[in-house]
């Protein structure tokens, strides 16, 4: 029964997204989708491994810069630029992992934050990244030379397919033998070690995967907005993705996706109100931590589980 429910939910999700651009501004939808992917990739490390990375904007931003740089300055084709950028982000994730995974808890968070700040500083000072201006006016090009991405609708569906494919991969990672080990680590590192898992290897793999997928989100964002700027690398963004996960529910598949969409929605609704966005985000954050600790999806699924348990008990 649970399986059919999930399948219906998935069908609904894909169906709504397939027709959504008829009613909703496609650029907003694309922003929401990239944010959802970013949050879902972050959730692999935060929700499923229990490690609060506070430097995930580095993976998103570096890929954004790399995509922009390769297309604009080196004439790479769109797909090759994206692919390269994702690989660079993945490698960066492995490097972060190598340095930060020696620590746990708050120390892990601080090392990732520090490393991300180093990347930010490089982007600010390195001439090739355009300093304060970032890289502007990146042509979208044509996918495989024939899908003209300047057409917003085409771009939307290309992006939708890529995001769905990436989310499918994330779903698989969570529901794989590897994902089981990660969840074990999240619950009890000691016990996972005593079962004979060399969890450090698993953590390196998940950091790399998460960084590469966050990189895909960053690269896709460049195709949508045609620029990469320092804000793609800023610690604000690293914080925002934590918020997206918390709103939706960490450690659930759907939570960060909905959370990411909610954050994008908030941004576009409050775009005119300037600095109020930050204040409202702060209030939401506090409300989530106080009343909704398991996020929207987490709370909902708990309710459902309890109801099912009660009805089972009543039947018995």
């Amino acid at each position, binding site marked *: 029964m649970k399986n059919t429910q999930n399948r219906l939910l998935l069908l609904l999700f894909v169906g709504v997204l397939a027709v959504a651009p008829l009613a909703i501004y496609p650029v907003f939808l694309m922003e929401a989708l990239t944010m959802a992917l970013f949050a879902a990739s972050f959730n692999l490390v935060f929700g499923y491994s229990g490690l609060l990375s506070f430097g995930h904007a580095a993976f998103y931003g570096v890929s954004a810069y790399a995509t922009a740089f390769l297309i604009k300055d080196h004439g790479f084709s769109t797909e090759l630029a994206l692919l390269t950028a994702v690989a660079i982000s993945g490698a960066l994730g492995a490097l972060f992992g190598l340095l930060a995974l020696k620590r746990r808890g708050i120390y892990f968070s601080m090392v990732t934050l520090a490393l991300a700040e180093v990347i930010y500083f490089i982007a600010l000072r390195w001439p090739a990244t355009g300093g304060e201006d970032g890289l502007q006016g990146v042509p979208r090009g044509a996918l495989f030379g024939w899908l003209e991405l300047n057409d917003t609708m085409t771009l939307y569906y290309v992006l939708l397919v890529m995001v769905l494919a990436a989310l499918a991969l994330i779903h698989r990672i969570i*529901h*794989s033998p590897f994902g*089981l080990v990660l969840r074990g680590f999240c*619950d009890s590192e000691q016990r996972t*070690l005593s*079962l004979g898992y060399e969890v450090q290897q698993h953590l390196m*793999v998940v950091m790399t*995967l998460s960084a590469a997928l966050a990189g895909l989100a960053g690269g896709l964002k460049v195709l949508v907005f045609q620029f990469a700027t320092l804000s793609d690398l800023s610690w604000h963004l690293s914080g925002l993705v934590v918020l997206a996960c918390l709103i939706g529910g960490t450690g659930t598949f759907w939570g960060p996706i909905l959370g990411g969409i909610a954050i994008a929605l908030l941004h576009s609704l409050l775009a005119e109100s300037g600095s109020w966005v930050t204040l409202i985000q702060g209030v939401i954050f506090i409300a989530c931590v106080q009343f909704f600790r398991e996020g929207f999806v987490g709370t909902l699924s708990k309710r459902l589980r309890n109801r099912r348990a009660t009805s089972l008990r009543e039947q018995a």
Partner: protein
Amino acid sequence: MHTPTEFEIETQGLSKEFSGFSAVKNVSLKVRRGSIHALLGPNGAGKTTLFNLITRFIEPSEGRVLFRSQDVTALPPARLAHLGVARSFQISAVFPHMDVLENVLLALQRKEERGLAFWKNIQSLRHLEPRAHELLQSVGLSQYVHTRAGELSYGRKRALELATTLALDPAVLLLDEPMAGISHADIDGIANLIKAAASNRTVLMVEHNLGVVARICDRITVMRRGEILVEGSYQEVSAHPAVIEAYMGKRKNAA
């Protein structure tokens, strides 16, 4: 004397100091292959520390640990588990957010590969489920297969932990107080399970339940203040004056 290969686990002059306090002092312990060996002693005698030293969850200040005559002192916990030395914990260690079946599957999966297959469907572990159900049945958890481990009672968590440890099919089983928190009714069942498990492996266990120790253990080492006080069969040990004074006497009075 015995040839060295008769012993599955051996410690040589193992010591651990915590800033001046000796938790374990010069312990040389030999656990014979195929035996059930009990560690007894009052609280603070260093039994759990000794376990942690053997499995390298803490680093010894001095001494060596041998597994089948091979020096494993420097091996990290996961590597030692790979060689076939599995342990349980005093404070029950289950994975609380996973269901009971997943707890066992995670352990069973270890034997197959390193668990790095992120591209494979979890359904690929299906073939391990019959074995998982078998293990759960042996510890009396058949009814709780889909319960979250965190929602189990303390005793059932202990039973689950035993099942996951057995799932590793280890050569050596280190059990830290397997009977603690187990209800009276279930104690005999768990004791029989340990006895059955020991038919083809070696068990070293910390246990306070003397009835169980007397019934299933072949050899007993009594520790006090980090040192070995006496070692022998249950009859030898329980007749030893120092043991009666230090440990058994109090127990008997209390009971």
